[in-house]
């Protein structure tokens, strides 16, 4: 690998690190209205479970096809859905670019989430992996597709806030 290529890869990696950090900060800081903006307008967001993926089953826990559905999800959380106030604390690790050709970046990462309910008990809420497709749009990196695969099929109580 020549020096220019290495430099470009490192620069991309830094931009991706920032993207992933900005994404989880928006969610963890309860700026959910910013969440759809991390996707292109036709972006697809899915939360699935490892069990279903391993069995080749298509079901998702959450499925937004396009930014409009993401905005609807956020609006529902703000105005319609009822649940105890809680915050996530995402830890993202093992970010790896798996493909970087023809304008599309594919990357995967691991995550775990600590959830604190009502300012009280903190517990491990979820862990899993993300499989992402990222494109550059108006100088910004955005998700064209984000597949979140939970290791467990069991959701503690409910799943309201996106991951």
């Amino acid at each position, binding site marked *: 690998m020549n020096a220019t290529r290495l430099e470009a890869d490192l620069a991309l990696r830094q931009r991706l690190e920032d993207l992933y950090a900005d994404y989880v900060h928006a969610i963890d800081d309860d700026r959910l209205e910013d969440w759809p903006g991390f996707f292109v307008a036709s972006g697809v967001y899915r*939360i*699935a*479970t490892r*069990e*279903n993926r391993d*069995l080749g*089953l*298509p*079901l*998702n*826990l*959450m*499925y*937004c*096809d*396009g*930014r*409009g*559905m993401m*905005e*609807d*999800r956020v*609006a*529902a959380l703000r*105005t*319609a*859905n*009822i*649940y*105890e106030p809680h915050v996530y604390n995402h830890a993202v690790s093992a970010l790896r670019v798996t493909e970087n050709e023809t304008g599309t970046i594919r990357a995967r990462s691991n995550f775990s989430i600590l959830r604190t309910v009502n300012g009280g008990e903190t517990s491990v809420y979820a862990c899993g992996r993300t499989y992402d497709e990222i494109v550059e749009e108006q100088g910004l990196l955005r998700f064209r597709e984000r597949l979140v695969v939970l290791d467990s*099929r*069991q*959701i*503690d*109580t*409910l*799943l*309201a806030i996106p991951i």
Partner: protein
Amino acid sequence: MQTQEPAAPFVWPFEDASRAPFQVYTDAAIYAREQERLFRGPVWNFLCLECEIPNPGDYKTTFVGDAPIIVARAQDGSVNALVNRCAHKGALVCFKQRGNAPEFNCVYHNWTYDLTGALTGVAFRKGVGGKGGLDADFDFSAHGLERLRVETYGQMIFGTFSQETPPFRDYIGAELCANIDRVFVKPLKVLGYHSQILPNNWKLYAENNKDSYHASLLHVFHNTFGVVRPNMGGGVKISPNGWHHLSYTVRNADSDDAVGREKVRSLKESYKLHDARMMEHRLELGDLTTNAIQTVFPTLVVQQILNALAVRQIVPKGVDRTELVWTILGFADDDAQMQELRLQVNNLVGPAGLISMEDGCVGGWVQQAAKADPQAMTVMPMGGRGVEASEGSRVTEAAVRGFWRGWRALMGV
């Protein structure tokens, strides 16, 4: 030294089932009695679907109350439900969720059972070098896996420990069988699974499903976004003994498929929903029913919400913990478009469901508050004190009272 007084036997504290003491959700002795009287009593417990174990050797593990169960299809095609506990030392014979196997081997001491649960092999049965091993009179036939009686209805496999349980059709009655026949009208396929750990006693979720009164009050997604079709009819059907129910909504006959979609679309413009695809309903069951929530006492829910079909199994995990297992369904002949529609509609239901997520937490709130006053009682006055069906209105707690009738009958209280 003080001696512990034996606990007084539980007595139902009210003259009918329109009150229930909080103790039923918090008392470990009652939970233990439920295992014996209710889950091992004359009830049909949902085990799995036929399409999950289509071939000989296919198996799936599940629970009836606390009892771990294997459901297996034998070489002759018969379905067998076995307690998943080795007759030797009690280890799980099968620790995988599903699979295909010619027989079951307990890994602890390699005792082997066939797919009907019969003991077929014991390691070192003749000992080693003429020493050890089984006595000559050891009876293999007396040491199989405990078997449940099995019946299949509507592509669903049920099991019972009791010899007294009537045939399934008589158990829930013809009127409620009709809804299963209506919904599971073609061969089913599984689209996926998920589960929810509910921080409450299993009965709080069982009641929640029978409580048609709470739906529009707790789950306000429809109202908030104006995606309610006008003139919706419906009602509540209840089996004569009160145990099982069906709560359903029928949309107005003039809002056929295209018009119904149009209404959603126009509402979308005037309210805030950007994308109403998840609210679309393709009529596929030959009627205008939009929602049908059916319970089979004690722990099964059969669901049709628009095109979202599912069975929900309530699995008790201790007095204050419940696993709710969702099996999300489609029909085997669904085309790609239909499958996509079902995946969209499933945004409404499940652990992250826009119209169902509240059910995950509301039981926990009762559980937290119930603990302090086991003798205090919940009040269920809506729609009288009986278990009568209700046509045209779902503002009734009759089906919840029916649940308690069934529970009291089986618990002998």
